[in-house]
């Protein structure tokens, strides 16, 4: 989406704070900005993620002090990468913002646990379900699945019924 289109659709204040300000400040690190149903998404460069997050949290007129969620999306078919999505909320300003980073398989993402402690469980869940490693996470291990589980269930190539073993006779045979 073009920046001009976004400007037209958003209220002026939201546009200047959530789109223009961030884009001006970080320039090339913001790879893409989209607007869908009034929700702003910034796709950012992996290396700049923690810096952007710190800025969003501490900037006085943004104050994204609340990290709602971290999650993964398996886009390997269309974009040949995983997306890690961060949902932020600013309690005093009532803004929501979505930040995304794209990572190739076997690439690491810097952890945002030093910025928001609430990222702890959410990043562990993303690791558990997609196998995305968060660099700098204090306690990165599986959260839902048993520690010795093989494979990452929410990846698109993982079968819905799981793999066949002694406990799961209805699973798919492993190739």
């Amino acid at each position, binding site marked *: 989406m073009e920046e001009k289109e976004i400007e037209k659709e958003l209220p002026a204040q939201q546009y200047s704070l959530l789109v223009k300000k961030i884009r001006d400040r970080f320039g090339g690190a913001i790879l893409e900005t989209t607007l869908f149903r009034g929700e702003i998404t910034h796709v950012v460069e992996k290396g700049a993620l923690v810096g952007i997050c710190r800025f969003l949290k501490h900037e006085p007129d943004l104050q994204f*002090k609340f990290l709602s969620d971290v999650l993964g999306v398996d886009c390997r078919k269309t974009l040949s990468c995983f997306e890690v999505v961060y949902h932020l909320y600013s309690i005093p300003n009532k803004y929501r913002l979505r930040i995304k980073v794209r990572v190739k398989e076997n690439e690491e993402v810097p952890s945002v646990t030093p910025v928001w*402690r609430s990222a702890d*469980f959410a990043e562990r869940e993303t690791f558990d379900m997609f196998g995305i490693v968060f660099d700098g996470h204090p306690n990165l291990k599986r959260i839902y699945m048993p520690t010795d589980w093989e494979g990452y*269930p929410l990846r698109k190539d993982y079968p819905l019924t799981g793999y066949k073993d002694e406990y799961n006779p209805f699973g798919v045979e492993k190739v």
Partner: protein
Amino acid sequence: MEDVMSIASNSGDDIITKEVTLNMGPQHPSTHGVMHLILRMQGEKIVKAEPDIGYLHRGMEKIAENLLYSQFVPYTDRLDYLSSMTNNLSYVMAVEKLIGLEIPERAKYIRVIVSELSRISSHLLAVGAWGLDLGAVTLVLYAFREREMILDLFEMLCGARLTYNYMKIGGMRGDLPPGFKEKCRDFIQIFPKRVDEYEQLLTGNRIWLQRNKGVGVISAEDAVDLGLTGPSLRGSGVKWDIRKDTPYLVYDRFDFKVPAGGNGDCFDRYMVRIEEMRQANKIIAQALEQIPDGPVNADAPEFVSPPRKDITTNMEVLIHHFKLISHGFKAPKGEVYSSIEAPKGELGFYIVSDGSEMPFRVKIRAPSFVNLQSVDPMSRGAYFADVVAVISSLDPVFGEVDK
């Protein structure tokens, strides 16, 4: 066992206590489900409390990716099974946002009424079970008396008492049945007096105060940083309620207050829940007063199946209904996040659509899951018995934690 023996055998002036690891759960009456808490303790004091979850993991998000949009609604009932209505609401609202569907006024009011009733029933169980855990057994019996009345009301609406599946994309499965309004009015008339009764049992009770005041304290700043939402966040004095701050449905038309605590201890979280029940009662009273007549389903044939009457009389309508149920509808390509103030906190659904009939990715932002992170900071340095109060004050439901 060895650890315990070594403590027991220590004698003399300088008793060296060795750190003991205690497994609390997964089968334990006061962990509210199948939570496994690994407690590292120095004597009776907690050094670290680590929740170990996943015993109820069913892979809801994977299931959602393989179903039509409308087929996932019954699954949401099984998230926070103590207030299925709000789970339904959050999911259908996310899908409606994705497809850009506006629902009729009457449906909005019905949604408000049922989700506030749900809030009351969920808080009743939260406070009741909390009392049970701390030895005030009477309260849970009192709370269940009123919860029963709410479940009766829900049974009138949809025939179910636990997993309602009452909302559908674009509206409701049925209108309010005759007699519902009167029965609901009877309930809201009685209920404030019943809340006074609970307060009489607990609020001034010395044991209750000693077990809860100053226990599990968390500052407002930490609470936000840890991602706490709902009554647990407001107990620390942060007045963030999605119903008030970014109103959805018709919440902006009602007069209600958002209660908040000051100390951020278990007692504040208890008081917030008690007051929220009173406020929810007020909202229901206003909604019953204002509710307009009209349809309960959006007039959008591509998303909402036609009324039953037409299906049985018109062949084309029957074919359309069949196609909609078996093939579903295509959602536009894009991604939405929609969240509501569920009884436990912010319940959000993030849906990514690739333009097909099935969601490409559904992420459930479950409040209990995120809230559980604060068990550790809340119980560090406290006594073992306080952990029980801390868990109860967070009110986790494991259908939701484990998804």
